[in-house]
């Protein structure tokens, strides 16, 4: 009970706002998710394993996780550079570039998927040059990766920007006056300062990529065992009225995603340990 003991604070409304938070999260997040678990609970163990561990499903897990991971990693790297340029330099067209970053947020994902497919298909703008070189992007795993990279970029840029803006220029000056060169300053002073925000951006981008459906289905070609992502598989099962099979896969994805995000949060907490003042 000691946890719930009433604490007097100058800021009123703790009880009310916490109550609201719990009710809201319960309604919006927990109830729908627990429905998935309940539905799955009705399956026998054997059916469950058969549904979630068939070769086709395993291939989809692999593609979804690895493509998302690769997309989030690429976004972390290039997003850092984009955020750096947007914060540190003044140049004509900066506002436009800044607004451009948000486009993947705002665009309906299906539009993104169709646009990407049109560009990378055999007769598309880029595809017509890449295909003769033996580089196939549309309707391959690479296409999935390209789509996931596209939708994930804003997460990294937008989480890094405020942190970069607050970074004291004195830190770099201190490093420079102590004799550090540019690379040493970046590696030893700047990156450790940015790491927690970079990780947050990575995690958000990764989570978004795992759940992405609209933009991928167009460019991937949806070939079983090759370019099928997990969300698509779930939709397929639903279309075949296999609700239990669909929720079973959903449960596996949910658990795995939750575990991964939890892990990232822990790394973040560890890396932020010096930030308390």
């Amino acid at each position, binding site marked *: 009970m000691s946890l719930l003991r009433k604490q007097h604070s100058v800021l009123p409304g703790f009880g009310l706002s916490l109550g609201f938070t719990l009710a809201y999260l319960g309604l919006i997040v927990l109830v729908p998710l627990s429905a998935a678990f309940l539905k799955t609970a009705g399956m026998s163990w054997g059916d469950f394993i058969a549904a979630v561990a068939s070769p086709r499903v395993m291939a989809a897990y692999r593609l979804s996780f690895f493509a998302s991971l690769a997309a989030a990693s690429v976004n972390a790297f290039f997003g850092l550079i984009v955020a750096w340029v947007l914060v540190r330099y003044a140049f004509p067209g900066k506002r436009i570039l800044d607004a451009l970053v948000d486009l993947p947020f705002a665009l309906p994902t299906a539009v993104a998927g169709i646009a990407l497919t049109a560009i990378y298909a055999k007769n598309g703008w880029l595809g017509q040059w890449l295909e003769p070189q033996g580089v196939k992007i549309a309707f391959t795993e690479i296409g999935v990766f390209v789509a996931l990279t596209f939708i994930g970029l804003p997460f990294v840029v937008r989480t890094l920007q405020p942190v970069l803006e607050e970074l*004291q220029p004195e830190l770099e*000056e201190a*490093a420079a*006056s*102590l*004799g*550090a*060169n540019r690379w040493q300053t970046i590696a030893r002073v700047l990156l*450790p*300062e940015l790491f927690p925000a970079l990780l947050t951006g990575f995690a958000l981008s990764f989570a978004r990529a795992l759940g992405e459906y609209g933009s991928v289905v167009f460019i991937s070609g949806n070939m079983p065992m090759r370019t099928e992502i997990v969300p698509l598989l779930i939709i397929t099962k639903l279309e075949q009225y296999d609700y239990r099979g669909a929720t079973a896969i959903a449960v596996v994805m949910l658990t795995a995603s939750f575990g991964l995000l939890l892990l990232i949060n822990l790394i973040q907490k560890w890396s932020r340990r010096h930030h308390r003042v």
Partner: protein
Amino acid sequence: MSIHLSNINKSFGAFTALGGVDLNVPAGKLVALLGPSGSGKTTLLRIIAGLDEPDLGSGSIAFHGEDVTRVPAGKRKVGFVFQHYALFRHMTVFDNIAFGLNVRPRRDRPPASDIADRVHRLLKLVQLEGLDERLPSQLSGGQRQRVALARALAVEPKVLLLDEPFGALDAKVRKELRRWLRRFHEEINLTTLFVTHDQEEALEIADEVVIMNQAKIEQVGTPQEVYDRPATPFVYQFLGNVNILRAPALAPAVTPGAPALVRDGQIYVRPHDIAISPFVVGAGGVEAEIRGIHAAGPQAKLTLEQVSNHELIEVELSRSELVGLDLKLNDRVGLRLRRSHSFSEDYAI
């Protein structure tokens, strides 16, 4: 190592931060750069450190006769302490202090055991022994300031530059730390330049005070010189309380060698440089009436009104003097300038 600056200009857009500054800092001295905010003192310090560059084609910076105008900050052998410390918060105190040594190219880098020795010696010097594994966030403001100082000293600089070193600390710690800095300076005897806007701080600990205003140096001298013989009205006003009077008012009292400055028809005189005596007709001095007596604190402050032109004058005197004179409101008194100094010709009428 001495520092020589000649004709340094720096502007940020239309704003002139430094307008043709010349300065010599003798080796081994503790020098204060004193001025109000926006006077250019921090810019000057940053230019000496190489963190900012003077305007193209203007002036030069030399350390011990050697031109360093084009030498990058990291190679100037300058220790710079930032106002807000700029400690690397993800590194321990030890790693912060060792940073300047650890980033050296392998062939110049001392062995790890030497680095550890040096860090521990510095920690002892700044009185932070045993805190080497702490993170900056676990230290108080004064401790962080000293870590920043130790970090700057680790690279064995020839010149130490401090930007508002006590600006972010509370009054009590500030006083302790500035006395400590004075003793510390005597111990290490390194040419040290620090920026401050606190005249008390500058006058208390510096060997020499450089007073800046509006992108220019107003006066350079020992604390006593600049306080007793301010060269300009600005310095007069900046270093303490001052009466600014129209010349005819106190003019009869300003004699050659008096502690007052006359510029543009105005007289600058400090409240404690005015002596009060009972008014006697024909005895000379300025006739005035007492309008206010504030006797709280070590010094009594009187507000007086001149009979001739109703100008108000502030006078400070000791409590015992006040009791001795037995002054009351509206008493008529005579004012004189108190002591005489050897002033140069400019200051006399």
